């Protein structure tokens, strides 16, 4: 009889997705792609919450993911508005060239 997929594999997948997102944040210079990489990192964390909730037979993991999705939606609205504003102001969204707060 084949065993069900162990939770460890889900955690490893979650860590791998988080790491790929972090690599993307470090190597890409386009602001919107950096933003998408942060969304990918959030999804990696969500997967860890869901896998732990399933492993413990608890519904709390799903509730946490629900609130993370709410925050991600608000963050997307505000963050993309800031990108549009920056593009209007500076004509670029390359994160290396955005230094408005530099003294």
């Amino acid at each position: 009889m084949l065993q069900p997929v162990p939770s460890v594999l889900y955690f490893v997948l979650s860590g791998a997705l988080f790491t790929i997102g972090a690599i993307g944040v470090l190597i890409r210079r386009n602001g919107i792609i950096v933003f998408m990489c942060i969304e990918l990192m959030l999804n990696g964390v969500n997967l860890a919450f869901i896998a732990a909730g399933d492993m413990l037979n608890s519904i709390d993991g799903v509730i946490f993911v629900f609130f993370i999705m709410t925050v991600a939606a608000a963050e997307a609205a505000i963050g993309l508005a800031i990108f549009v504003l920056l593009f209007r102001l500076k004509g670029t969204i390359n994160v290396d060239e955005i230094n408005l707060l530099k003294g």
Partner: protein
Amino acid sequence: MNGLSFINPLFQWAVFLVASLLSLFCALMMITRRNPIHAALWLIVAFFNLAVIYLTLHAQFIAVAQVIVYAGAIMMLIVFVIMLIHLESDIVYAGRLSGAKIIGAFITVILFLEIGAAIYSSGGAPVKAAAAPAGAAQDSVVRVGTALYGKYLFPFEIASILLLIGIVGAVVLSRRRND
């Protein structure tokens, strides 16, 4: 391990392997594409694969919310903003591979090894799972709703205020000033 074992293990393995490998592949394609639209489309595919993985973890509500909120709403916003913003100069920049990028990627691999060490050190300990309530397998969405409107009612209301702040903030920020 899974109290709700109404999914055939062979089927679960097959779905998990296909969806996880595809999501990793799509994530790698996302961070390497030069054109931001291509990156966004690969990320949408990765989100769909994650929704499939949530289904194998008995989280039907989150799987549907993933498709609607992430693959639908958030990625639609991102694609719209990519189309609003003129990006040709950034496409030229993307190809360079500098030393800082290589060092950054190397440090991130160390981060992954740390996560792996944490999983490895916690994976050996047996976890005592609570007994599943009767009929829980069929009523996952009912359980989510009961928890959300019962135990977590106050955070739920706070989340609605957060979304309202998000709407107002986006409108205020992107308004064109008449000066």
